[in-house]
């Protein structure tokens, strides 16, 4: 058993692109954990999509052996956490599994919204924090200014921050020393006490089945043990026990303070809950670790196959993904517009995008994604309370007493120059300002915003009005009543269910008009004119008319052309099969895709 004082468990917190993954790679490399020839950039970001987008979704971990200057060899366990707000709960769990954090800040950029959100999670978890100023190789680096900013904004001492370049390797040895010297070893922990370990994360491995990442708090886990998950009550035998270096390496036992993994015959990731407490089946511990909370989806949308023949393939893909992701929910949905599909729930927009991309890429199914929506609480006049996941299921308004919507607390950091645009955007999205402070040339605005305004392209708008210079983070804040209505879109007097949405009454006209205008451009002209309307209940609030097709005729057609021109028409007609029929109107798939992508 490794003595506690020679273990250091830590995570790295950073805003996206500030160099978290690069630093992790460097630490692994410098300690010879991976042979030089096996090194590939961003070792810990495993999945393609993660690698491409530079985000980490699953917590990853690596055990590093570090011979320190004091002559001792330390075991450093790094947990690389998902940095994104969608996975805030997962982050907070990972943080509870370690005792300290490296706070990486890009010395050319300074503190950003995600830096704040993540560092506060670390502070909440009682972490010791070592500030690391990265990218000092760049001429634009201003380590002094950024150190000051860290002290001002976050309120931690940055006077002995490590100055490094994760890219060139400058300062990495200092980081390793700081981990050993400045971060605390795991607290307490009795190897002979009943087993108490935290389930940090889990994922599916095609060869091993479900792999469970754990942090041992008390007691010892050994290969062959029979364990029990305290929240779910499920029992498993420990078939394989090991650590990541970062490749799997078997160990016989893991004691207090250690981080590692085990496999049992766990079939589905769904059977494992992040934050659960693992103990032995017999003579287990009495009380579970505090803070467990099942993850709940907050953003919903419909996923439909573009080719309706692929519905079964989609079902298959969704079921497989769900096995590996407990936070993602789904149920079958039928839409007159889009046919058969699934209504899916996600932790946030990024989570939604990741799942959608994986279905499209890994399973090769082209998808139509309907406008993301949130869960509304409907308080009915008869006292019943309904959770509305899909605007299409909205009951008769006359039976609804009032509606509550989820709100968030958003933190936006932005250079002064763009502040005006950001405030206007927040105002337009029904935001309430909670705080506005300035740090150097940057402003930090804190807003109370309706989540439904944020899931609807807020992030894209923010990026565009600030030319990409703003950073944004948020946390859920609970529900509040507002004047919300269901807006329907009617094409040629037929309601198009896939396009209905919940909106604030005051914003309905604007949204309705924008949607009608957009559809007018997207729906091809027909042989008759087509009214396109937005309506609330029976009342039309916006209207456009798509005029009838005026010209579609082949000018010249003689004997020699007969076969060729007929084939052309037949091909065009076959092309219409990719359209959805609404009464007499055919709407191309493209129109749905673009209409639902609508900005502002």
């Amino acid at each position, binding site marked *: 058993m490794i003595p506690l004082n020679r273990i250091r468990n830590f995570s790295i917190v950073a805003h996206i692109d500030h160099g978290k993954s690069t630093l992790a790679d460097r630490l692994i490399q410098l300690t010879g954990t991976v042979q030089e020839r096996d090194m590939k950039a961003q070792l810990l970001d495993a999945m393609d999509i993660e690698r491409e987008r530079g985000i980490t979704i699953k917590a990853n971990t690596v055990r590093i052996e570090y011979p320190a200057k004091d002559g001792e060899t330390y075991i450093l366990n790094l947990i690389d956490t998902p940095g994104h707000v969608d996975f805030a709960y997962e982050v907070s769990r990972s943080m509870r599994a370690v005792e300290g954090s490296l706070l990486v800040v890009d010395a050319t950029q300074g503190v950003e919204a995600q830096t704040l959100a993540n560092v506060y999670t670390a502070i909440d978890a009682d972490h010791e924090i070592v500030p690391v100023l990265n990218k000092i190789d760049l001429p634009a680096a201003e380590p002094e200014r950024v150190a000051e900013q860290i002290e001002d904004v976050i309120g931690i001492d940055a006077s002995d921050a490590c100055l490094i370049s994760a890219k060139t390797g400058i300062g990495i040895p200092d980081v390793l020393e700081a981990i050993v010297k400045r971060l605390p070893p795991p607290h307490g922990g009795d190897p002979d006490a009943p087993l108490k370990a935290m389930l940090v994360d889990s994922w599916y491995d095609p060869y091993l089945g479900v792999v469970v990442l754990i942090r041992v708090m008390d007691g010892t886990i050994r290969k062959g043990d029979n364990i029990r998950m305290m929240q779910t009550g499920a029992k498993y035998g420990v078939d394989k026990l090991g650590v990541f270096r970062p490749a799997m390496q078997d160990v016989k036992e893991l004691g207090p303070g250690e981080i590692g993994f085990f496999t049992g015959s766990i079939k589905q990731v769904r059977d494992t809950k992040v934050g659960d407490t693992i103990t032995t089946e017999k003579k287990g511990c009495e009380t579970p670790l505090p803070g467990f909370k099942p993850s709940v989806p907050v953003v919903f949308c419909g996923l439909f196959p573009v080719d309706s023949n692929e519905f079964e393939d989609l079902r298959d893909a969704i079921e497989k993904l769900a096995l590996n992701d407990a936070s993602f929910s789904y149920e079958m949905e039928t839409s007159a517009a889009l046919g058969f599909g699934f209504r899916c729930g996600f932790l946030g927009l990024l989570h939604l995008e990741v799942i959608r991309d994986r279905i499209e890429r890994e399973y090769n199914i082209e998808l139509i994604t309907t406008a993301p929506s949130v869960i509304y609480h409907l308080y009915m006049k008869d006292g019943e309370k309904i959770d509305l996941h899909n605007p299409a299921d909205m009951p008769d308004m006359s039976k609804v007493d009032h509606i509550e919507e989820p709100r968030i607390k958003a933190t936006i950091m932005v250079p002064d120059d763009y502040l005006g645009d950001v405030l206007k955007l927040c105002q337009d999205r029904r935001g309430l300002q909670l705080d506005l402070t300035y740090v150097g040339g940057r402003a930090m605005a804190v807003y109370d915003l309706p989540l439904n305004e944020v899931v609807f392209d807020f992030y894209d708008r923010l990026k565009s009005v600030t030319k990409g210079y703003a950073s944004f983070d948020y946390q859920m804040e609970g529900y509040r009543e507002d004047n919300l209505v269901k807006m329907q879109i009617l094409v040629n007097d037929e309601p198009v269910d896939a396009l209905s949405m919940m909106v604030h009454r005051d914003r309905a006209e604007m949204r309705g008009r924008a949607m009608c205008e957009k559809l007018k451009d997207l729906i091809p002209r027909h042989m008759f004119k087509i009214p396109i309307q937005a309506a609330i209940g029976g009342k039309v609030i916006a209207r456009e008319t798509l005029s009838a097709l005026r010209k579609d005729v*082949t*000018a010249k057609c003689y*004997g020699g052309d007969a076969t060729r021109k007929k084939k052309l028409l037949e091909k065009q007609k076959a092309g219409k099969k990719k359209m959805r029929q609404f009464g007499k109107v055919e709407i191309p798939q493209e129109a749905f895709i673009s209409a639902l992508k609508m900005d502002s």
Partner: protein
Amino acid sequence: MHSGNSWRVVLTENWQRGGFGLYVHWPFCAAKCPYCDFNSHVVPAVDQTRWARALASEVRRAAEETPGRVLSSIFFGGGTPSLMLPETVAVVLDAARQGWVWANDIEITLEANPSSVEAERFRGIAEAGVNRVSLGVQSLRDADLRRLGRLHDVAEAKTAIRVARETFQRVSFDLIYARQDQTLEDWRTELTEALSMGVDHLSLYQLTIEQGTAFGDRFNAGRLRGLPGEDLSADMYELTQELCGAPGLPAYEISNHARPGAESRHNLIYWRYGDWVGIGPGAHGRVTHAHQRRANEGWKQPAKWIEAAEAGTGDRQVSVIDPQNMAGEYLMMGLRIPEGIDLGVLHGWDPQIAPESAIRELEGLGLVWKTETALGVTPEGRLVLNSIVKALLP
């Protein structure tokens, strides 16, 4: 009695109704126009004696396969058939005269480009037997003729029209409109001028951007500017109907206008889906043989075609068109003319095509009309004919 297939019975009747024609393709031009996707080739020299011999032998071969037919029209199309020597035309016509019985009022048309070189040849061509010319005037504006890559100017075209009218019984000319930067008013003046020139037949085509042409490439690259949008081209088409109606040249087909009685009988064969023999590079034919409708298609490359023709047949391919495809072609061609199509014939070939429900919907929109036996497109429907055909295809 034949087998019970009703379409075979109506088939025999149909070619008789549509007439019987001969199409001869002359694949050479003096220059390639940037908008043109016809089978036309620019070559340094053409051995006309050899071509005359090959075309004539193909005519004889086709005649042997269609004994007893009465030929109602012959059409020399191109390419630029006005580049044929009068002797070449004569050799082909001689073969046709020997091959088939000619109708008394046989129509013999030749497509001519209106440059001075060709106008000089009109007399000889008329003497060879051609009684109708169709002149590719294309525009009455010099700047536009240049943009269309034409070798003639307006003055030459006018001379050619005059000479043609003195030489041939019947004269028609072609204009291409909806051109780059053309306004509605520009077209009004130009067409009015054209109508004052005293011909009784005009082909008025909206410029079509064809893939695989110079214009097509420029268009794809976004470098063909000033083309009219849907609304302007629709307005131009409607204006065309209005302007031609007054002097008595109504449309008897989407893009063809004639004084009643002066219609091109040859082209009507295509639209009535009658029988015709197609001779020459890339030419298509449709001929009913032993109750089957056969389609033939000549080799496109002139060099390949002539070698093949000399070796026995210029056809690249001969196939039998199945009833469904016949129905589709008949629908697409037949709805181009005001008389429309015979529903009995159509449904005899394919009961699935043009279902009652689709017809009723289009009727409701005022785009088609229907009687007990026939289906046709209204003047309003003409402008959206492709959509109508798509709605009616099975």
